């Protein structure tokens, strides 16, 4: 199993060091780190990096805040709440491609339920939310949020439910207000779950593909050209395999760094939470 996993990765690294184009295999030449340098210097590549980072930060932040609010609302043990949670998890199970298509239809300025009225009443640019470079990325963040907020809420809810009630009751008995209880007791003990949720979502948001592919395909004018889309275009439409592999490896490194940082934070928060007990 390690072989099947490791070999493509190793080959990917090897490719990134070459200027390999499938269209002209005889031109395969060793160009060292030129592909990686191109990631910085090439305008389209840099744009892709920026777009991806903006999307990831915005999406994860928004999903975290909303997810926390939702988790607090769901923090009660009743059949009603459990049913709500079950139903709310449905968006998580829908194929991302379908999600993209659904919102593409809903937001279309010509006939979409939302898009038509938004365009008519001036809330959205004339070409629709997805058609305008200024709003496209924000719209994608919103679509991604629709699908994943319940997931965030679920993880945070699990964290909330695992909090020891005696500490909370002691705080309440000591006269702490709800807001004080939340800030000084709940939040510090919740930090491991918070970081876990952030890690998972960040790694997934960084690699977003299906939703973008189904709605804007990277456009308009590169406004939603996330790294995955850019890499796939380079690799399988332009057949510039060396460059695409460089993109991919950069992503891997970024994700690895992020997760290492997060795991470190989780461990520290875990220890701090245990000390509180």
């Amino acid at each position, binding site marked *: *199993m390690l072989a099947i996993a490791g070999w*493509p990765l190793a080959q*990917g690294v090897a490719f990134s060091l070459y200027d390999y184009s499938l269209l002209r295999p005889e031109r395969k030449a060793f160009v060292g780190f030129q592909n990686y340098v191109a990631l910085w210097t090439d305008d389209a590549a840099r744009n892709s990096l920026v777009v991806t980072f903006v999307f990831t930060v915005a999406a994860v932040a928004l999903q975290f805040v909303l997810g926390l609010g939702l988790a607090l609302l769901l923090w009660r043990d009743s059949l009603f709440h459990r049913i709500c949670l079950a139903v709310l*998890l449905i968006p998580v199970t829908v194929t991302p491609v379908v999600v993209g298509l659904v919102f593409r239809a809903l937001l279309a300025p010509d*006939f979409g339920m939302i898009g038509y009225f938004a365009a008519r009443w001036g809330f959205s640019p004339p070409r629709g939310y997805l058609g305008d470079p200024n709003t496209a990325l924000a719209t994608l963040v919103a679509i991604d949020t629709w699908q994943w907020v319940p997931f965030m809420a679920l993880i945070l809810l699990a964290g909330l439910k695992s909090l020891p009630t005696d500490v909370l009751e002691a705080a309440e008995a000591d006269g702490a207000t709800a807001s004080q209880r939340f800030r000084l007791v709940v939040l510090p003990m919740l930090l491991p779950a918070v970081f876990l949720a952030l890690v998972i979502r960040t790694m997934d948001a960084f690699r977003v593909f*299906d939703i973008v592919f189904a709605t804007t395909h990277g456009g308009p004018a590169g406004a939603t050209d996330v790294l995955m889309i850019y890499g796939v275009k380079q690799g399988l439409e332009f057949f510039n395999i060396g460059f695409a592999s460089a993109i991919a490896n950069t*992503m891997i490194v970024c994700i690895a760094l992020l997760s290492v940082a997060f795991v470190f934070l989780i461990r520290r928060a875990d220890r701090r939470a245990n000390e509180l007990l």
Partner: protein
Amino acid sequence: MSRRAPLRVAVIERSALVLIVAFFMAPLGWLITTAYKPARDIFSFPPTLAFAPTLNNFRGVFHYFDLPHLIQSSLIITVGSVLLSLLLGVPAGYALARSRTRRAVALAYFFLAVRTVPPVATLIPFYLMMRDVGLLGTWWAVILINTMLNSAFVVWMMFAYFRSLPKEMEEAALTDGCTLTGAFFRVSLPLVKPGIVASALLCVMFSWNDFIYSAFLTRAETKPISVALLAAYGTKDINWGTLGALAHFSTIPIVVIALLLNRYFVQGLTRGIS
């Protein structure tokens, strides 16, 4: 949280939840109802909520798509990769959980990391690998790569589940005369059944919903539903109604499974990652 919350707060909370649920379900409701709308009502200008229901779109689906074939592809890919992933992952997770070395934990994290690799990285080399082996375009290509990712995930989940099993149970079985594998099959495995179900459920979800690997590793005959949905958009007469009808077949199976096995779903999503 205090259980004697005042009634007013409870009412506000519940209404808020109902609103939120309605908000999240709205796009899906649109999708489902669109499948029953005639084209005239879908593209009506301005869009309306009322419509005359029709089954025309479903007829269109069967006309334009080879639906049985698509479902067959999706099923083969999903079932194949889930079974293989479980076969590979569960024993591996058990081995890691029961191992006494410290490297075991690091290895478990490595398996989790495998799943976070962006598909772009593995797609191209895998594509070439499959081409050289001659499996490009067949179901096996997609099954293999899905298995690769899913089994890593299964290893991680089963590692967490097995680790929470007290070793005493197996030791008791051993003293009763069971062999090691016997103990595994008769004692440990039944105890982690929720974990296995949860892992299987999540693997099913990942494989069935997978798009990027299926899109680039299959031919026309072996395309699953997730790819057909997007590939069909924009060609000829495919309209939203037809897509809505097709989406029925693509999303409802998973939704139903997830709702029925919701307990395992929730458990799996939270447990396997803590």
